[in-house]
């Protein structure tokens, strides 16, 4: 299948993996391998001075995976820009998953602050992948300021509720000239396959894999689902109808 292209780079996998909530770094690394993902998100937090050497990056092969630092925890554009600059200083990576979530209960992204931060970061040379509500107008506005993708949510982060925003995501996919990555809320491989069948370019999954009883097997299940969904989309699904349409011939029956 043709690779995913974002900002001039190509990726074999259309599943992006988040690295939060895994019970150990070793488990995360094994799930990452089974997911087939090429892009992994990470967060920036203060060092715990009392527990100083907990280094999760040591288990991620930077030659194999693209680290995508996020700006989680940012409540406004200023905080997001600060986090993005820190991430770049730490890694020399110019890619950033922009998220601005002032609401602690639903973690819904602030569209105005996200657009403001995206504009600043694009001008500073960042490759910006913004996490947004499924708002087709906002998606176009972000594309116009130069973001590399748009990443509409399926349902609230970590909720595992699946594609609650289907109708709006369909419009975003129809109108977008940048890759559409469905992010947040995909709880099952079938949800991911659904998004891919709709024509999403990729999906980003974390909680559904990290909190499964067997994250490694669930990572593989999502890997297969994303491939199946993409292949189905490219295959051109048949028409949907209200009435039956016989699959077997309607001639040659054994009767008069």
């Amino acid at each position: 299948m043709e690779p995913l292209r974002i900002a001039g780079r190509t990726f074999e996998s259309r599943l992006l993996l988040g690295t939060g909530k895994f019970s150990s770094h070793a488990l995360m690394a094994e799930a990452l391998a089974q997911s087939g993902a090429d892009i992994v998100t990470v967060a920036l937090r203060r060092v715990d001075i009392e527990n100083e050497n907990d280094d999760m990056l040591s288990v991620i092969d930077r030659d194999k995976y693209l680290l995508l630092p996020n700006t989680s925890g940012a409540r406004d554009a200023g905080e997001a820009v600060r986090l993005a600059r820190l991430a770049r200083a730490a890694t020399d990576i110019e890619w950033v998953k922009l998220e601005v979530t002032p609401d602690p209960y639903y973690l819904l992204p602030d569209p105005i602050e996200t657009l403001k931060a995206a504009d600043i970061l694009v001008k500073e040379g960042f490759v910006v992948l913004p996490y947004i509500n499924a708002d087709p107008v906002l998606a176009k506005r972000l594309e116009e300021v130069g973001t590399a993708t748009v990443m509409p949510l399926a349902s609230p982060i970590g909720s595992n509720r699946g594609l609650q925003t289907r109708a709006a995501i369909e419009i975003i996919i129809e109108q977008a000239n940048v890759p559409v990555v469905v992010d947040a809320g995909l709880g099952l491989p079938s949800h991911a396959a659904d998004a891919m069948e709709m024509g999403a370019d990729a999906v980003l999954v974390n909680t559904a894999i990290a909190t499964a009883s067997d994250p490694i097997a669930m990572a593989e299940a999502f890997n297969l689902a994303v491939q199946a969904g993409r292949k189905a989309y490219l295959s051109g699904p048949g028409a949907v109808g209200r009435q039956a349409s016989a699959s077997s011939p309607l001639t040659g029956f054994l009767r008069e």
Partner: protein
Amino acid sequence: MKTLRINGAWRDFPEGLPETVSDLLDVLHINQATVVAEINEQIVKRPEFATTPLEPGQSIELIRFVGGG
């Protein structure tokens, strides 16, 4: 005054203030390779850790990557 504000909390250095960011990380037993630092909201890049002097009363943020979605 031998204090620095590190990650939001004031900390005393009765033995003397660490001279550079590198010295501070050594005192705190923090692996330099995994950390990014800010002094008074100005980023200090890792290659500059050993040459960036500290002054009493500065606000220092020491940040690293953790798992996240």
